[in-house]
């Protein structure tokens, strides 16, 4: 179990992350709402606890790598990075504006603190596999001290569930298993929606955990709004050395704002000013204490 203090810290940070998501989307006038809100707790758990990183030195070589494959949920990435200290929170309001570092989908050249440019779905996991292969190659060659199978850093890749429709993912999933990449951890945002509707109507993914098991991955299923569940399982995944791990994070799209939850409509629609005010009011009244569907 994580400590009460950590639980409180993460709860408070996740609320700030969600508020900023609403504010930046209202200011941008376009962008995605459901995915970012749904992943706010997972991002918070990573950037405020799990991830080895340095906001003041985003190119630190020993950092863990976090590849966001479904770039369209970048409001949650930007918001978390800002609250973690990578850049001023006020800059979030430049999202999607001309000249902004915060492009509509992440662009590494505009925003050097993101690991990859992303947006076109299905290619993030491949890039993460490439990073993990090199990390192990360098570790075996003794680049980080005595030759070892693990460098001590991890490569995390975040994908959306609908994104798994893309065949390239399954090429990468096979390769990661073949290479027994214990330094690779995939997080699937299992929110059950994609643009045109529910994933099980558009292109059924179930049984998703059995698919990954059949591909020889270690599978964890977590409540994506429960910090203890997320942290405990990712920690166990890190200790899995002989195969890649996948964390299927069950999330509620639009989580934290009742009006936005579970509705495919909010996949790619931003709140307008009034909806934004309503959302902020609700988020603040909850004080970050959003409930997961498993609670």
């Amino acid at each position: 179990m994580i400590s009460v203090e950590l639980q409180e810290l993460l709860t408070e940070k996740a609320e700030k992350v969600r508020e900023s998501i609403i504010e930046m989307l209202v200011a941008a006038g376009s962008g995605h709402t459901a995915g970012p809100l749904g992943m706010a707790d997972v991002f918070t758990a990573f950037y405020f606890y799990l991830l080895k990183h340095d906001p003041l030195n985003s190119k630190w070589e020993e950092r863990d790598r976090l590849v966001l494959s479904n770039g369209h949920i970048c409001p949650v990435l930007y918001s978390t990075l800002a609250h973690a200290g990578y850049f001023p929170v006020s800059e979030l309001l430049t999202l999607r504006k001309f000249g902004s570092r915060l492009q509509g989908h992440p662009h590494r050249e505009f925003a050097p603190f993101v690991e990859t440019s992303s947006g076109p779905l299905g290619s993030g996991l491949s890039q993460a596999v490439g990073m993990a292969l090199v990390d192990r190659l360098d570790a075996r060659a003794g680049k980080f001290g005595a030759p070892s199978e693990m460098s001590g850093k991890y490569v995390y890749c975040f994908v959306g569930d609908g994104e798994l429709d893309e065949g390239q993912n399954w090429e990468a999933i096979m390769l990661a298993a073949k290479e027994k990449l214990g330094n690779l951890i995939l997080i699937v945002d299992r929110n059950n929606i994609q643009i045109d509707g529910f994933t099980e109507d558009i292109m059924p993914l179930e049984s998703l955990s059995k698919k990954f098991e059949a591909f020889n991955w270690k599978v964890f299923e977590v409540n994506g709004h429960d910090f203890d569940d997320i942290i405990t399982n990712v920690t166990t995944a890190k200790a899995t050395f002989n195969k890649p791990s996948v964390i299927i994070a069950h999330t509620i799209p639009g989580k934290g704002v009742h009006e936005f939850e579970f509705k495919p409509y909010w996949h790619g629609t931003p709140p307008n000013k009034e909806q934004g005010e309503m959302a902020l009011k609700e988020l603040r009244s909850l004080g970050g204490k959003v409930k997961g569907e498993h609670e």
Partner: protein
Amino acid sequence: MLAKHLNPNIFNKDVEQQPIRQGFGEGLLIAGRHNENVVALCADLTDSSKISLFKEEFPKRYFEMGIGEQNMASVASGMAAMGKIPFIASYAMFSPGRNWEQIRTTIAYNNVPVKIGGSHAGVSVGPDGGTHQAVEDIALMRVIPRMVVISPCDALEAKKATIAAALTDSPTYIRLAREKTPIITTADSPFEIGKAYVLWSNLNGKLDVKNEIASKKISLIATGALVHKALQAAKELEIENVLCEVINVPTIKPLDEKTILESVTKTELVITIEEHQVVGGLGGAIAELLSEKLPTKIIRIGVQNVFGQSGTPEELIEHYGMGVESIKKAAREI
């Protein structure tokens, strides 16, 4: 006349021949010896792409992707983000054919130094037929910002190009051919990415033929193995009172505008020659350059908006109008 640094046997029937892809394999091996950050990936075609030479010497730095070119391109991108210089190889039809968007977004948009070797380009793949004959690849790569596009004329030039590509930070496409083709250059021939080379010029020569009114001067601008056909045509055209400058363009992007414009200023007529669609490749690039900077009459020799088919390489080169006789015919007509 022929540039001094070229193979002296170039016009002999028994001129030495090697597949251009062999030069890629040998160049990659040398690049790998010079820099331990060079790694190689292949999609189940190690021997065909000649990446096998690197794999044998550096098994730990070689990664087998299985038949998955899209994954291969993006895995290479991730490796480059970690400081490696990855070379990926397959048939050009599949890489950069099938994985264009992965190359565009995860390699070029990310601006990482992945090098793409596309083998079996052109109709000279032969009996495998049109499915396997990439005649669109130059266009696909040339349109992507930052992408450097190299199309070597022989195995030696391919070797030099591969070694040179490993030394740059640019995403780079190297176009390779399957069949053995004549060795045009020598170890002494210069090669630099971004440079075109005049391999033949008789523009200053005296005409043997009395009817000087019929004479004309033409820049034959060629890339890939067809450079040899261009040289052959230039030699044979001399007796028809047609004087030529043959320019080998191994780097199609960035284009060596200076060398090309200097030649065209002298000749005022241009024929481009490539084993590729005339749209978007070398011919397209030259037409774009000339129409902006030096409007000139041009004929583009290449594949004319059709797909390939089975046959021997020579049959196909002739059928699609890219042989010596086709070049001579165009020279007479222009």
